[in-house]
């Protein structure tokens, strides 16, 4: 049964206790991730994403349940699990490096702990440092690196022993646009060309939609949905959304919003973006057929490019499923204008 899956969790539960206080960080999570799958774990801060991944990499022992990584039990065979997984720590990731060693020495040290032969380690480090454009800074102490440089180093470290399964916590957070794009392409190719399995946590909706074959949405320690990005959107198709595009400057935005929100067919404004000489507004409505002409009528006098029915974005889908906003920051490497416009 486990053979076709790279990661299986059954009722995995983690409870943190502080005095009399009890926090259920992960609540009976059951997941099956196939080999060669790019799987996204999505959720707001504190949803349980990191705790869940830390149990999979054996840093935390669950209070209930069990999980298998590459067929090995995280409870009974933690050492076998560690040999097979490449883990990249998120959020506090820069701290997981030795700041008083150079980037190169950090990588060499971890390669040795992984028993990677010296010549293989040297070759991998050289190529990967060049790939992430760190070759000229390889011998500088990590304490002199920027956040983005440390993130790149962390990613290389997770890959050094050529694991079949990668568990990456926000691997593009802190990267510049170009680097983030490059890393995404590389990660996707690791799955497509080499058959690696990636479990990836992110706040970045664009990234998740673009990269992941399947997504699980986690909130308050519970999985509230598993499916493809498209399935999630379909599940919430009852959210009726209209997208309005105007060829206008941002200074008319307040008046435009006032006109739209005064209409009884409009429930709420979901997002508003200003892109040079364009305004894009997404609203939820009671009914498409009546809302579209009414909105167009209310905006008479403005340069309307289109008023049309739109599918919900993952962000909107999450809002519908979990009742909370999923992201708390602007995604790295994604232009504001592209956000929420992908179909």
């Amino acid at each position: 049964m486990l053979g076709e899956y790279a990661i299986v969790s059954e009722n995995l539960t983690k409870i943190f206790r502080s005095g009399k206080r009890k926090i259920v960080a992960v609540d009976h999570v059951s997941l099956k991730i196939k080999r060669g799958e790019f799987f996204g774990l999505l959720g707001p801060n504190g949803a349980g994403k990191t705790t869940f991944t830390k149990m999979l990499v054996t840093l935390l022992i669950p209070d209930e349940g069990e999980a298998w990584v590459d067929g090995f039990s995280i409870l009974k065979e933690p050492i076998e699990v560690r040999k097979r997984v490449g883990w990249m720590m998120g959020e506090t990731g820069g701290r997981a490096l030795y700041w008083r060693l150079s980037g190169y020495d950090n990588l060499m040290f971890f390669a040795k702990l992984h028993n990677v032969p010296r010549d293989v380690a040297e070759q991998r480090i050289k190529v990967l440092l060049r790939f992430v454009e760190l070759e000229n800074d390889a011998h500088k102490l990590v304490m002199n690196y920027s956040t983005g440089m440390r993130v790149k180093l962390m990613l290389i470290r997770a890959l050094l022993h050529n694991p079949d399964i990668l568990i990456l916590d926000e691997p593009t957070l802190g990267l510049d646009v170009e680097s983030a794009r490059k890393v995404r392409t590389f990660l996707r190719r690791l799955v497509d060309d080499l058959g690696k399995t990636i479990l990836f946590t992110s706040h970045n909706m664009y990234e998740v939609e673009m990269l992941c074959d399947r997504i699980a949405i986690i909130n308050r320690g519970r999985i509230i949905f598993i499916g493809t990005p498209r399935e999630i959107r379909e599940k919430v198709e009852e959210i009726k959304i209209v997208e309005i595009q105007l060829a206008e400057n941002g200074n008319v935005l307040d008046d435009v919003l006032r006109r739209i929100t005064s209409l009884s067919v409009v429930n709420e404004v979901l997002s508003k973006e200003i892109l040079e000489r364009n305004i894009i507004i997404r609203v939820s409505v009671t009914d498409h057929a009546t809302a579209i002409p009414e909105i167009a009528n209310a905006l008479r006098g403005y340069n309307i490019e289109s008023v049309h029915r739109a599918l919900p974005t993952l962000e909107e889908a999450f809002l519908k499923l979990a009742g909370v906003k999923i992201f708390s920051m602007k995604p790295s490497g994604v232009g504001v204008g592209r956000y929420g416009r992908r179909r």
Partner: protein
Amino acid sequence: MAEDVREALEIFRVRETKKDSFMARALASLYYQLKIIATYKMFLAIEFIDIILSVLIYYFVGFLVSPQALSSLGYSPDYLAFAVLGIGMSRYLWTSISRLAHKLSHEISEGTFESLVAIDVDNFRSWLIGQVIYGFTWSSMWFVGTILVGMALGAKISGDPILWFQAIFILLLTIAVHVGIGIIAAGMYIKHKQLETMLVFLSLVMEFFGGVLYPLSLLYNYRPLYYIAMLLPFTHGLEMFRRTLMNEWTILHPQMLLHLGFLLVFLPLIYLGFKIFERYLNLARKEGVLGTY
């Protein structure tokens, strides 16, 4: 960009054969720790001054100690030699005990400990051994420095190479016993995080009962204290070490054999240390306290 990605992917197509090498991991832990410490230049300079000052203190205290008093307790009448050997060895053992706990506290507060646990394949044993060898290397430099400064100030220490060989054997054996205590202290730190309190207590116990600055036989008139002292491995190690280099006793001397017997009883502490460390590590994994954020 496509070429970059292709090249980066290419290096993962071939699977290397990994040879599981405990010693290679332990030596990596030692080597990179030495590289880290080499970046603390101010620390290294202060350590050097520390060696000179700590010997100078006992050089001057030596003027207050009558040689006859020391002779009457069975030692050669040179207090400076007595003190230099005492502080040299106590520093050695102190490093064995405190080094690991300090290093772990640093790893946990810096955030690197989780990274190490995530790739640990031998219940931390290679890492612990690497750090122990590092501690040994470091305190060897301190020890040699102390002896050299002491000899420059006139301390009379045996120059017989065979006795030095015996002294090094005693030192290694005493360290091996204390490494076990150090590993237990480090394990306790992972769980309880009371580093300084714990280490100050251990250091006081060692200094008071071990006879670092006064001969152990002085405690003989205070029997309960004397018996406690005799239960500590440090006391026996230090006594053997001093007797070798000050009195030129060989290991076959009846008193030396008695001390050796006591030390050997404590040797299984290393194994116990590994087991206790593993237990504390698992407790920390259970409670989620491997990192402090």
